[in-house]
């Protein structure tokens, strides 16, 4: 089951933005998330006119596209020299995202990520998000690292 990976995600409750992983291998991942209508950010962004903030869209893309894939790669031993322990966590190091459509409360979005490289503990991916009609919502290049990764004894 590809959803087994979800138990390794370090996020909890209001900042977990992954529901389901439908495909996962060493080259990429596909997953989805349904925006909750009662999420805290809709009340203030914007009052009477709730729209999913771009930072949340970016976070959904990063959690599915980078963190899920990154943890999978670490667990499968793709990185020969470093491993994760309880003090390790993922950190975003750069994003370059374009947004094409608004995402409204209750919408389900699907994130598709393709690995560009994973080297020296850094993962760089091309990540796209689509809505339920299959229309592009956002697209971009994301990179992240595993902070406090542990060097493996040779």
């Amino acid at each position: 089951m590809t959803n087994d990976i979800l138990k390794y995600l370090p996020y909890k409750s209001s900042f977990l933005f992954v529901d389901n992983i439908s495909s996962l291998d060493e080259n990429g991942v596909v997953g989805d998330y349904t925006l909750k209508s009662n999420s805290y950010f809709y009340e203030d962004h914007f009052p009477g006119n709730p729209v999913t903030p771009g930072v949340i869209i970016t976070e959904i893309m990063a959690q599915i596209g980078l963190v899920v894939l990154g943890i999978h790669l670490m667990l499968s031993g793709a990185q020969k020299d470093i491993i994760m322990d309880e003090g390790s966590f993922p950190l975003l190091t750069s994003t370059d995202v374009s947004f094409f459509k608004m995402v409204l409360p209750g919408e389900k979005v699907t994130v598709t990520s393709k690995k560009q490289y994973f080297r020296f503990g850094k993962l760089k991916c091309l990540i796209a998000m689509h809505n339920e009609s299959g229309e592009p919502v956002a697209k971009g290049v994301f990179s992240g690292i595993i902070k406090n990764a542990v060097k493996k004894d040779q």
Partner: protein
Amino acid sequence: MNRKEILIELKKVLAPYTESKAMLDGINEQTDLIKDLNINSANLVDIIIDAEAQYNIEIDFDAAEKMYNVGNCIDVISEKINKPA
């Protein structure tokens, strides 16, 4: 390729990753990539990947760990180009 030639090529590799253009023009073997050139530490990985393409070499984890200043970068690169895999 001698150290001076490697340095000239290395400048081109570093250019996209630093906004300190004046510092880049005046780099020497003591220049620290993060402290002096204000390069984002995660971009060191991209610099290593670009250097591999530029010099047609392969850099492993142990060598990459040493590449924090210009002199160390030149050490690693000159060792690899003079000893092809």
